[in-house]
């Protein structure tokens, strides 16, 4: 039931990571990475393709395992993935939309799961200009409309931390503005936002974190040093 009143204490929360390192497919994607977001803050992840923005977002969400460092929420180390998950919303490349359900039904499902209020569904649809499509099965939506439906999920049940992976993909100008507004509102009420994007448009006065400015290192389970005497 803490989902319900989490909106109240948005302001008191902060999120940070220290010395994070992550290995994917045998290569070290990043190492020694620090970040910190305070209430109302925003962090824009930048970096060329393949620099590790998506990976870092998944680490922040607790989905991907990291090899060193730690995450902290209000200075308390993040340990239980479920309770960490309850305080964040993650919009990924995949939009988790069920084609057979209508726009409203899609949102209603997530609202129920996240114990949000029924009433917020209409507001979320309005924010992303989906109201007129409310009774359309999602299979009839175009790429941008589907993506807007995924974004509308951010608003059905409040959560302090938003993780957005290239949220501008496929959006038209009006929808980009709507997204920027939603982000600004969320921050104004004390929420935090992390955006991985090649365009800066959505976030005003956010911090910037350059991901992957170092040469990626090879990383098997063990470093060369550790292996040195092993296979002789």
């Amino acid at each position, binding site marked *: 039931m803490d*989902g319900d009143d989490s909106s109240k204490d948005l302001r008191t929360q902060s999120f940070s990571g220290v010395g994070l390192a992550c290995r994917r497919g045998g290569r070290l994607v990043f190492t020694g990475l620090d970040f910190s977001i305070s209430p109302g803050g925003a962090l824009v992840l930048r970096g060329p393709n393949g620099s590790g923005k998506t990976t870092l977002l998944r680490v922040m*969400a*607790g*989905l*991907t*395992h990291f090899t060193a460092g730690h995450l902290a929420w209000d200075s308390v180390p993040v340990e239980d*993935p*479920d*309770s960490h*998950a*309850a*305080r*964040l*919303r*993650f919009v*990924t*490349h*995949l*939009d*988790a*939309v*069920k084609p*057979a*359900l209508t726009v409203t*039904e899609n949102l209603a*499902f*997530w609202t*129920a*799961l*996240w*114990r949000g209020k029924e009433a917020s569904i209409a507001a979320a649809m309005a924010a992303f200009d989906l109201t007129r499509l409310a009774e359309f099965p999602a299979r009839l939506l175009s790429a941008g409309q589907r993506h807007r439906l995924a974004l509308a*999920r951010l608003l059905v049940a409040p959560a302090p931390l938003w993780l957005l992976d290239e949220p501008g993909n496929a959006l038209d100008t009006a929808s980009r503005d709507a997204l920027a507004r939603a982000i600004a509102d969320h921050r104004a009420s004390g929420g935090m936002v992390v955006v991985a994007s090649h365009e800066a448009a959505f976030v005003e006065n956010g911090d910037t974190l350059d991901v992957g400015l170092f040469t990626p290192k090879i990383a098997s389970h063990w470093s060369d040093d550790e292996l040195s005497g092993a296979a002789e």
Partner: protein
Amino acid sequence: MSVFTSILARDLRLAIRQSADSLTVVAFFAIATVLFPFGVGPEANVLARIAGGVVWVTALLAALLSLDRLFTVDFEDGTLDQLVLSGEPLSFIVLGKVVAHWLTTGVPLIIMSPILAVTLHLPAEGYLPLMLALLLGTPTVSLVGAVGAALVLGTRRGGVLLSLLVLPLYIPVLIFGTAAVEAALTGVSATPMLSVLGGFAVLALTLCPWATAAALRQAVE
């Protein structure tokens, strides 16, 4: 429990909206069973001899086929990421999906089974034990299958790999399931076999949702 019911409700709604789905599971069950008289020949005594086993094996294969896609769609469209991040116990969510699966495929199979038993010339006293055995056995089938379905997420040709993982685990269910039918035909009480099947179901209910949740977690990593 609200997680459980909202998952259950959504999966049932999806199943009803695409009602052809559970119908086709039953259709597979029927067709695969009907293949046997073609393959084995139509002699009633041979068929009657193998009827219980054939119905059980095809029921297992039918359940397997439908389990294949239990999590695949959610995995591919990103829903699974979101479910793992729901902040609710993942094993409850899993249980909701498994119960929806059982209601839409297991139950139709049970209802269908006596009809197929007739076409295979199973003696009438075998019908009730067959249905009871399926009633107690199919929940285990769904629960164990869910673990397999979660493990093979992200592999190509998951279906075949799934059967490799899961079919061996079905063997005990199969043995006691057919033994129950056998017993009834030879006039012995089927109760001991049925209670073993019930025991399997309880065991599966306590272990499988947890194991499935763990498998799903590593699938989205």
